[in-house]
């Protein structure tokens, strides 16, 4: 009797095992493993020097997630169905040390399906080695430091901002086209600014212009008065300051108070956070300075994925009761790219996610422009033109002055004295 029972159990177990094998071999793999929600892990900074930009990016992502969840979630090809999105987010307070711990927590404790970096190169830099170590694709919205993209990788994709190595190309070409010979470059000592400065210097030198002043300052630099005087002693025609928003505010304040005048002054963040910059340094100080205008300050009317820039601005403004800035758009765009990635990746694996992004590259245009990444994960599309901020009413408005095919006006050079 005992032998019969034992045989029956063995037969049942064998049958179950065999049917299990048959199921796993014959049926789609997703049937048993589809998660109830897609967990997107990310960080944001509620305080510290990157807070304004980081919160904008996070806000844009939340706006995207709310939109897709209203329609039942994102379509995931690997499971052939829509699945709601859940954002798992922690506050890194602009600290790389805190961010390192929290990225680790997202990967090892929360087991997120998709890992997305916080704003900017500084807070992204610590996520890159962690993601690679855990074989996770890092969706990098706005970390563009050239050092990130030095070798082939399956675990990094810069999706919403061009690599720092290509940012300053239109600026360098504009300077050369204007026949400006004496250029001063002051930059923050971080991946984002230093790699832009290096590209700018190299491109200018190829065009026969050797910068008369080329120096880094600490990322936390907040007083440029003496520095500006030192720069002025080199008699530059153009002064290019490459920094984050707090640096740009301090620099423009110091310039306004110094009584110095340069034919051309360039800063980065008026093109991304124009309202913040106007509020802090005033339209008079910003007038006739140059910047990289980012969407929605420049618009892409034709897209192959998601709303065009104007439609996004309209929808976002209606929903959030405030007009979006570039960081809102970057966060939203990152959501769109992830959505398309999930909709096209045949399997729910990190390598398939990466391949899906590579397949989209060069064939996709969003509200930020052409999406084009290389095998190193660098964004080579979404190029930023050069604009001059010209007085308009009580504020300033960007006029694209380079490249010619995107220009909406001519540069007023040299800048009039204020």
């Amino acid at each position, binding site marked *: 009797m005992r032998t019969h029972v034992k045989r029956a159990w063995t037969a049942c177990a064998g049958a179950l095992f065999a049917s299990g094998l048959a199921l796993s071999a014959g049926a789609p793999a997703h049937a048993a493993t589809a998660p109830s929600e897609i967990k997107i892990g990310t960080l944001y*900074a*509620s*305080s*510290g*020097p990157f*807070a*304004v930009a980081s*919160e904008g990016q996070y806000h844009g992502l939340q706006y995207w997630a709310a939109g897709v969840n209203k329609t039942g979630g994102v379509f995931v090809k690997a499971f052939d169905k829509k699945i709601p999105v859940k954002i798992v987010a922690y506050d890194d307070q*602009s600290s790389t040390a805190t961010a390192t711990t929290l990225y680790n927590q997202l990967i090892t404790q929360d087991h997120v399906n998709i890992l997305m970096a916080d704003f900017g190169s500084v807070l992204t830099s610590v996520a890159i080695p962690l993601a690679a170590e855990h074989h996770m694709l890092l969706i990098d919205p706005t970390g563009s430091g050239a050092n990130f993209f030095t070798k082939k990788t399956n675990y990094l994709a810069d999706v919403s901002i061009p690599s720092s190595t290509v940012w300053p190309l239109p600026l360098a070409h504009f300077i050369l086209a204007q026949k400006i010979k004496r250029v001063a470059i*002051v930059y923050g*000592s971080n991946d984002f600014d230093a790699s832009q400065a290096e590209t700018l210097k190299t491109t200018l030198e190829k065009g026969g212009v050797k910068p008369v002043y080329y*120096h*880094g*300052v*600490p990322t*936390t*630099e*907040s*007083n*440029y*008065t*003496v*520095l500006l*005087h*030192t720069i002025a*002693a080199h008699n530059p025609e153009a002064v290019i300051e490459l920094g984050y*928003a*707090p640096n740009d*505010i*301090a*620099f423009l*304040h*110091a310039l*306004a*108070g*110094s*009584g110095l005048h340069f034919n051309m002054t360039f800063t980065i963040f008026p093109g991304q956070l124009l309202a*913040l910059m106007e*509020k*802090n*340094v*005033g339209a008079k*100080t910003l007038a006739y300075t140059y910047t990289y205008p980012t969407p929605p300050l420049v618009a892409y009317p034709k897209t192959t994925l998601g709303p065009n820039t104007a439609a996004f601005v309209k929808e976002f403004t209606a929903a959030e009761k405030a007009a979006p800035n570039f960081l809102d758009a970057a966060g939203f765009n990152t959501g769109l790219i992830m959505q398309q990635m999930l909709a096209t990746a045949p399997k729910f694996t990190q390598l398939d996610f990466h391949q899906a992004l590579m397949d989209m590259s060069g064939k996709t245009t969003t509200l930020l422009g052409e999406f084009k990444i290389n095998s190193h994960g660098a964004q080579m599309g979404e190029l930023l033109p050069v604009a001059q901020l010209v007085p308009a009413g009580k504020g300033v408005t960007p006029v694209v002055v380079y490249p010619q095919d995107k220009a909406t006006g001519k540069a007023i050079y040299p800048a009039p004295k204020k």
Partner: protein
Amino acid sequence: MALLEYALIGGILYGIFFSLVGIGLNLIFGVMRIINLAHGQFIMLGGFGAYLLARGLGLNPLFGIPLAIAGGIVIGYPLYYGVVPRLQKSQDPEMLSFILFFGIAQMIEAVAVFAFGADQRSLPQDALGSGNIGVLGQEFPDSWWVACLVSVLAILGLYLYFSRTRLGFATRAIMADRDEARATGIDVDRVSAIALIIGIALAGIAGVFVPYLIGSVSSSIGDGLTTTSFAIIIIGSLGNPLGTVVGGLVFGIGTMLMQTYYSSWSNLAPYALLLAIVLVRPSGLLGKAVRRA
């Protein structure tokens, strides 16, 4: 040569302002042996006070000075009687104050983020004058001179308080030995409470000029200012408020010289100086000499 002159004059102006930034922290430590880790946050509050007056009410930011003094009284008095006597009774008041004021700093920062958000706020560019004033042919914005003048007046006022008033004498007696001062009949708590009020008010006054000297005020600038203040007061002499002036000048001139000649390392200069000075004179540049006097 002109660059050197500019850096030196700029360094002196910047340094005098940073003497004001650090002096309140040193006063509080000198009198109460309390490490006020919320010092930078009090400076930040001063900056936001001036911002509210200027942007909200259209007043000149200089009205932030009486507001900072009022803020010093409103915050300092209850803070002293609520916290300090208990701290003094503990076995290790310095360490306990370190932890307690760290908590206060975090709370102030969180409230500031809640009230003002995380973004930078600036004051009207021309509110302290829109021109430049030159010395030896080197011109600096009016706002720098005003900040320097107010700093000098505040430090001078503190000096006169110490050297000409009964309360000042009592404060110095407490700085020398708290128990002996109490034994001689000095109302240690009352005098210390006034010192805490003065320390916080001086921090608030410095905050009024922060947007002009470092570009903007934001809820996250506090910790950085506390660290800088520590470097300055240790260079000068920990526990000796007037030694802070020397620390501020060393900090200002060192920073501006580095900015002029090797800008990438300008933030390192004050801390390298701090290390060198502490190794050579552990009590700071004015340490022993002034304390004995």
